[in-house]
Each structure stands twice: as C-alpha cells, then as structure tokens.
C-alpha cells in the first residue's frame, strides 16, 4: 500500500480534529476530506479509523454508499452533466453522450491523461438553464450537442 505524504497525513488529522467532539462526526470528516483532498482512499480511511475508533469496514461502507465520496482521484476538470428531469426532457442525455464519445470515457470515469472526469449529476437546481452542466464550478447553460467539442477545447487549451 502506498504511503501517504506527511503533509497529507497532517492535513487529514487536522480535518479530523475539527469535528472529533461532535456526536457521530464521520460524515462531517469525510465531507471535508473529499472536498480538500479530492478522494478518500483506503490509506486515508485507516487514519480516520485510528483517530475516531470507527472500524475501517464501517467507514468503507459509508464512503461507498454516498455518490459524493470517491475512492479514486478525479480529473483536473470534473465535467458534471446534470441529468435531472428538467435537463433530461430537454436533451441532457444527448449532451452527456457526446462527451462520452469525444472523451472516450463512461460517466464516473476519468480520461487516461487525468485531465477530465465525466460525471452524471442529479439535479443541480439550475432547471431554468436546462440542459445545464458544470465544469468544476463553472456552469454552462442551455448546452447544445454541437457545443460539446468547444467546451472540451476550452479546457484542453488551458492545460
């Protein structure tokens, strides 16, 4: 098993310390780790287990239950295509299909160069902009299938 860098361990311990006094702090800890570290591999779960006394099996169960938590690192740019109902009835499936085709990845997967992760999102609450998608925090609204290449190029260029 790969050894974690000391700074990473320190960062994770800091996050745990933030919530250790809360009743049942596991979700709070995992949320922050996911946000700051990007993913929650087994090595990290072991540190959480050691500090909180919660068995790794239980932590693993929680990490794999929630779609927000990830066991693997995500790409530099996370493309989140909203597949909520409002977006779906306005053609979001075709949009994500185009991303799959052009990036050659399935939803939930990362491109080989580590640049893009393609995610299918549940409603992001931007139904008036349907179909909508997010690249990291930037929202694209009323996306059309033939705009997909342009969106990808925008980030490929910025590498």
């Amino acid at each position, binding site marked *: 098993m790969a050894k974690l860098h000391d700074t990473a361990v320190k960062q994770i311990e800091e996050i745990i310390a933030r919530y250790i006094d809360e*009743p049942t702090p596991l*979700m709070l800890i995992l*949320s922050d780790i996911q946000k700051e570290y990007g993913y929650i591999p087994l090595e990290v779960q072991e540190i959480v287990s050691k500090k909180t006394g919660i068995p790794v099996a239980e932590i693993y169960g929680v990490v794999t239950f929630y779609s927000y938590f990830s066991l693997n690192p995500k790409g530099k740019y996370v493309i989140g295509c909203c597949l909520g*109902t409002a977006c779906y009835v306005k053609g979001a499936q075709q949009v994500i299909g185009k991303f799959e085709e052009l990036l050659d990845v399935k939803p939930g997967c990362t491109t080989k160069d580590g640049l893009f992760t393609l995610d299918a999102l549940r409603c992001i609450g931007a139904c*008036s902009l349907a179909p909508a998608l997010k690249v990291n925090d930037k929202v694209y609204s009323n996306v059309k299938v033939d705009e997909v290449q342009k969106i990808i190029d925008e980030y490929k260029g910025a590498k």
Partner: protein
Amino acid sequence: MIQTEKELRTIIDERTATLNNKFANTKKRSILVCAGTGCLSNESQKILEELQKVIKDRKLDDKFEANIVGCFGFCSQGPFIKIYPDELVYKGVKVSDVEEIVDKTLAKGEIIDRLIYVDPVTKQKAYKLEEMSFYKKQVKVALHGVGVINPENVQEALGYGAFQGLLRALSMKPQEVVDEILKSGLRGRGGGGFPTGRKWQFALNQPAGTKYVVCNGDEGDPGAFMDSALLEGNPFAVIEGMMIAGYAIGAQNGYFYIRAEYPTAVRRIKNAIKQLKEIGLIGDHILGTDFSFDVHLRLGAGAFVCGEETALLNSIEGKRGMPRPRPPFPAVKGLWQHPSIINNVETLGTVPYVLREGADKFITMGTEKSKGTKVFALAGKVNNVGLVEVPMGITLRELVYDIGGGIANGKKFKAIQTGGPSGGCLTAADLDTPIDYDNLIAKGSMMGSGGAIVMDEDNCMVDVAKFYMDFICDESCGKCSPCRIGTKRMLEILTRITDGKGTLQDLADLEELADATKSNSICGLGQTAANPILSTMKQFRNEYVAHVVDKKCPAHICKNLMEYVIDKDKCIGCGMCARNCPVETIHKTDYVAPGHKLPSMFIDSSKCVKCGMCQSVCKFGAVSKN
C-alpha cells in the same frame, strides 16, 4: 445581544423603518441583483461586482447602492435586477450591460428597452414584477421575503417580519403552539402531506428530555429547486420555523441536513446561524426566557434515499443512509434514539407565517383539506420556467398556461409530472383539476415536494418512465429486496421495451412487479418507486403498445425504434450531411429532384448511429425522423 422580548420588538420596529426607507429612498437608491442559483449560474455575482465598481468609478456611490437579494423566481428570464424606488425590473442582464444601465438608467432615468420584459402573449411591456403574468396568481407565504431582503443580512430579515412568529410562540404555552399549527391544517410540504401539527403533538407527548428538530433539506427530487430557493433567499425564516418547532415540542437542538450539491444554500444557512448567534437569538435563555436552542448543520453526500426521514437520521449519525423500520417512529426514537421531528424546509418556512399572521388567516387560503399555499418548481417545456408559490386549489391549467405561459415553441401539451420519482403524470384531461394533496393522489400522481415538469409531444412517456426507474434503481439503498431487485427487473423490462425488444407479456410483468414492489418495500422510496410506471401505463398505454406491438416510438425518442430519412425531393444534394456524418453512412443516389442540379442523398440505416448530426446541419429541412 438582544436580551428581552421588549428589546427585540424595538429593534424590529427600527429595522422595519430602515428597510422601508431603503426601498422608498430617492436620495440613495437601492439596486437589487438576484443571487439565486439560476441567476448566479448566469454570472449575477459578476454583474453585482461590475455594478458596484461602475457606480464607484462614476462617483455615484452616495446616490446608489447595489446588493444581493434572493431568487425572484422567474428564473428563465434571469438574471434580474430591480431598481428602487420605482421597482423597475431589468431581465436577462449581462455583465456588458452594466455600464449602460449606470449611465443611462441610473444617471439619467432613461429606460433601456431591450432589458424590459415583454409578455409573449399580450406583447405588453412589464416594467415591474407584478405586471408580469407570471406573478399575477402568486401568493408569498413560505417565500415571504425571498426576493425582497438581503439573505445575508439578519437586520433586513428583522425588518421584514422575521422572529415575530417566534415572539408570539414564546408568549404561548407549547401545547398552544401545537394547537395553532393543528388549527392551521398545515401538512408536510416534503411530499407525504402528513399533518405537521400531529407530528409535533407526538413529539410533545414524549416525556421531557433531550429532543431534536431536524430540517430535511435533502431535496433530491430531480427537477425541483423549491427548498434551495427558500434556504438561499430567506434562511432566517427556516431557522425561525425550526425554533418555533423546538419550543413547541421541547427540543434544545436543531439540525439542518442539506444536500452538498447546494453550496449557496449551505453558505447562507451557515451565515444566518452565525449572525443569529451574535445577536443572541440562537443560544441560551433566548430573550430572557427559559427557552434555549442551538442550531447545527450537516451536509448530505449525494444519496436520494436520505430524503427519507429515517435514512436521513442514519446519515446524520454517520451511517449508511438506509431507512429504519417503523415503529418506533422518529417522534418516539429518532436522532440518537431521542424523540425527534423531521420537517421539510418549506414546512418550517411556512410555520413563522402561521404564528405571525395566525392560523385563522392561513386557513382562508387553499382547499378544504389542503390549506395554505404550495411552492412549485415549474420546469421542462413551458415558456416561463421558475419558482412559483400559489394557493392550494389552483388548477393545473392556471399553473401551466397562466403562470407558465404555455408550452414552449408552439408545441402541444402532453403531460405534467409531479412528485418526481415517487409521483406520476397528469394529462390534458386533468388540466382543470384543482391542485391539492388528495386530488393529485386520486388522479394517480402526488403532490411531492413540488417539482412540476411539463412535457410536450416530443417526450416519449415510456422513456420518461425508464428515466425515473433508472434513477430509483441507482438510488435504491439495497436494504430490502423488493426495492433492490424489483427496481432492477423493472428497469430491464423498460430497457427492453425502449430497445424495441419488448412483448405484451412484458407489460403484464411490469404491472405485477410494480405492484409487488409497492406493497412490500420498507420505505417510501420503494413503495412509490413504481408510480411513474403505473401512472404512464394508465395514461399512455397506447405508447407502450406502440413500442411493443408496432415497434414504433411515437415521439421519435427511442433510438432503436426510429430512423433518420432524407426527403429526396427536398434534398438539394449539397452533401453537408454526408461530410458531417461521423460514421460515413450517407451516400449519393442517382436521383436528381426536379429543379435541383445535384443528386439527392440517402442514409444507409444499417450503419446509422442516430446521432442526429445530419438533421442539425441540414439547412433545407430535408432530414427527418421516421
């Protein structure tokens, strides 16, 4: 720190005067920029910053002040800005419009015509929100203050009715507060419609001790954004509702559970809690009474089932979000095994109104068994997409046509889906049904949390049913087998049907599976999982039959059941389609249409991947779906 009720009343009077002055002031005029999720996604934060910068550059900062406000609701026309005291509203504002707005409208009072909303039906210009037909039938109860106050400023909230409900509650006995809610007939706005007062009564009846109020902000219904708008637009009202509930049942702590996909809502609730703690409205011995209350925040992590109240409790407790068997009910053994009530955001947002204005006023709105108002997220194929609050009892027709402005692009109305993955579809025959909990259930759908997705003739209802089943199958927590296996099998059958491989036996099997899943699942998610299938099979049986018998998708959505064809007489033979075809399956024919010089093209459907590229590039309308 506000230490007594009298002090709070004085402050409320002062802040009300300040806020009224802000809106009426002609010397220092206020400009509000919508900062709801929809408008923020359209750069409204940048518009605000640019506005503040240009005002400063032009040395107009003693005359104008720009700030944020919660969602105006009319999201499809956003971003909006509203200029006081005339209440002039500009729609569809872009960052590049800001300089012109400052130089013309603010400096000279000139109106910029292109930013004025024009009603698509009457062609009349609307200079104020209330002049737009979108707003005419709306009433703000739960959304009180949303789109009026700055949601990041407790002082403005206090100037607009906040905490007057709590003040009244604190002057009553807990049982009297519960009685007031019972009298109001308020029912849970999260979907089920359980009477809120009865829920509170169960919790109050438990022996005094540790109790909790939990606010369910895990708005997972895809296509719904009522709760996010309320949390973002007036977080103070939801907290006040939670505190009134806490006082009524004898709880000391409240927990917000908000989905992680709503960063703006999370930030505003956090900020509101902090500000209320600073002025002593959250803490020990609030306003010098014996009532102490603390408010906490927990985030969801992307699991639809956590909207189910017992699964939500497990999630707060750091476990997998799986439902608990009932009994014991949460009112007896809830969060950390203590008596708890779980109320939806909109329910808690409505509570302050009931206390402030009185149950007697609340029951004047609505129908016999569904009192008050309901917030809907109107989306899909309507012209006016947005957040609307209407009295219960309004008809679907009023919602879709008067408020929603009818179907976009001149298409025909087909169905409105309410209740999300737990609900069903209502058709043109139901348009004159008054909306309330019981009517919608009688029609085979349900109120749900308020998602209302309009579909037109281009939507395939089998595909819609498959969409919801795919969602539920993915979100099923796996605890009980009827839901875990039933949804999977139903999804397989629906996939078969939309792939053109279905049989009539599949339809019978679907109905049987739907029934079994409905009656045997542990929680609401499984019990309602089959509703989208049952309702579309009932209302649109002919579409299912067309898929399995004729092998046709009437709406041309299901890829395996349609093909692209070129009208050989419309085609001029330019070859644009062939050059763009990703699989090079479009070829020349020998036929030259009369009046054209080049031979027409045709599509060899054996290799066609049905991407639709040919149709989108054809300038002559020669490509169509068959």
